[in-house]
């Protein structure tokens, strides 16, 4: 059924704070907030905490659906009760002003955590209660390359509303029924937009595409070439440069790997899940001391293969990278994912 409601709305600049204040009444609001020199997507309690001008948030939305640490179960060794599940509370969360690439990345987390026959109830409970209001990237960041990997600075994947910043305020595009519902609730703040606003919105969006300076080689070509590059010498080359700190995986919006451990404190036991990284040697170390990925080259290979070859094989050709550029920008050794992809592109040609 086609909705008769307006698919667009206009939020005047001076009403932004009021809008955020209203959101705070609807659930827990997570928004970009400055912390020293960086911006973190985190809970805000007042509209004033929102960073109106901000660089790419250091974290991504993984934190919200798969927290860095969480208690899966509790146990009490001596008690009658064997163990008890600790499913998260189903609080409504509203993410305000996430970037379209980070929203898109959730699709890949969904692939993993919703996969049958064992959908992950911890993830799903959080995921089902997250509403996403994105802010389109009118001025993409230096390391961004979303547009060469199937995304766009104004992409709509997984978003309920996407906002475009124009001169006198923000244009809201309602994407889902949940998004429209927000619009209805804010009807006293949201105005109709003018033809001029529409023209400006189109211009801003077109311009953003042109501002993305970085370009990755054709991802489906990379994906195909990787199938015959498991033994390629390029992995040793990049592995030698890597220090194995794992920051690329901790910052990646499509990484989900985790560890499970038991910890005890004050007589109570907790089985906890924590983020883990394929860049650490312990990740795959067997008790026998055999390690299938014993060197940094094999671990760099795992990261790239997983995103660009294994995930597409398992999930209908979908490449698990959104081109946010965090791994390249924040690598202490300046290992640039695009350079690795270019190496694959070249080496693959030689092999062919």
């Amino acid at each position, binding site marked *: 059924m086609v909705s008769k409601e307006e698919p667009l709305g206009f939020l005047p600049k001076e009403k932004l704070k009021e809008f955020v204040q209203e959101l705070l009444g609807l659930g827990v609001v997570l928004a970009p907030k400055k912390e020293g020199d960086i911006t973190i997507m985190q809970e805000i309690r007042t509209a004033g905490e929102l960073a109106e001008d901000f660089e790419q948030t250091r974290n991504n939305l993984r934190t919200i659906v798969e927290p860095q640490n969480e208690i*899966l*179960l509790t*146990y009490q*060794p001596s008690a009658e009760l*064997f*163990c008890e*599940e600790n*499913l998260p509370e189903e609080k409504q969360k509203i993410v305000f002003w996430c970037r379209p690439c980070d929203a898109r990345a959730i699709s890949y987390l969904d692939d*993993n*955590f919703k*996969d049958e026959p*064992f*959908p*992950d*109830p*911890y993830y*799903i409970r959080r995921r089902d209660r997250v509403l996403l209001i994105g802010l389109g990237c009118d001025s993409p960041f230096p390391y961004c390359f979303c547009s060469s990997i199937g995304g766009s600075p104004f992409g709509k994947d997984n978003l309920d509303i996407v906002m475009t910043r124009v001169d006198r305020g923000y244009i809201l595009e309602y994407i889902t029924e949940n998004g429209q519902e927000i619009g209805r609730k804010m009807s006293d703040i949201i105005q109709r937009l003018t033809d001029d606003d529409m023209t400006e919105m189109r211009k801003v969006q077109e311009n953003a595409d042109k501002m993305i300076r970085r370009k990755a080689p054709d991802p489906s070509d990379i994906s195909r070439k990787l199938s015959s590059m*498991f*033994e390629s010498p390029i992995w040793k080359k990049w592995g030698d440069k890597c220090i194995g700190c794992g920051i690329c995986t901790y910052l990646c919006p499509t990484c*989900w*790997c*985790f*560890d*499970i*451990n*038991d910890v*005890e404190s004050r007589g109570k*036991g907790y*089985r906890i899940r924590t983020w*883990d990284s*394929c860049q650490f040697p312990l*990740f*795959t*170390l*067997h*008790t*026998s001391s*055999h390690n*299938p*990925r014993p060197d940094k080259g*094999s671990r760099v290979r*795992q990261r790239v*293969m*997983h995103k660009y*070859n*294994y995930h597409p*094989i*398992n999930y209908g050709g979908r490449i698990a990278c959104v081109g946010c550029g965090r791994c390249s920008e924040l690598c202490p050794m300046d290992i640039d994912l695009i350079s690795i992809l270019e190496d694959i592109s070249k080496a693959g040609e030689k092999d062919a």
Partner: protein
Amino acid sequence: MPENPYLPHAAVVRDIAQETSGERAVRTFTVDFEDENVSSNFKYRPGQLAMISVFGRGESMISMTSSPTMSKSLQFAIMRYGRVTSVLHYLEIGEKIGVRGPYGNGFPVADWKGKSLLFIGGGIGIAPLRSAYMYALDNRKDYGEISIFYGARSSQNIVFRKELESIAQSGKAKVELSIDKPEDDWKGFVGFVPANVKRLSPTSDNTIAIACGPVVMIKVAIDELLSLGFAPERIFTTMENKMKCGIGKCGRCNIGSVLVCKKGPVFSYDQIQKMPRDF
């Protein structure tokens, strides 16, 4: 929402059999779920896995060594080795462990009907094999010849020795035991298992070979099987990799694009040949 897959079920240890002793001792634990419903819902195939929990230590993925044809109890033959398996050896009868599963694909025992089965095991690799050969012995008329080649470092390290000897005596299967180094009282073959296979050269006619054990043993055994005329798709083995979730989520047990916990642990040699050397 379906049940929480991370939640282990309480299982009571009913019996502990000391199979071998020493630093790397093996014990077989027989356990029963506390909850009758859990027990009747736990339907498994030979070669499938379960996540065993000892709260405070963590979890370890272990293959069922029992066959679903044997009883409602589950059995796990566990070598004392790592963080979890070491404390498992301190368990006493009546104590509880956590069990969740079953996981993985298991052996395609239904596809093997009408065929002869050649089992080749080394060390603790006998654990998953036993699940399959006990299943075949309990459905004896469905299978042709059943042969079990099993080798251990020494006669003290032979797991399920008594049971294997009684299977041999029953005539239901041929059992060939071997040890790696000579011992005064040992009358059987001395040498590695694949060498024993080579010596007796079992036929590959209408036969499925299943090899489990140390990686080196499997490699040599597969070469031997190929030269005996076994087609790669008729040779099966189990792969293992470190696992934390067991349900295809935690991201570490993959060999190339294949998650061992979901698509494995049983693979044919034909499948393994197509995998990258990621194990």
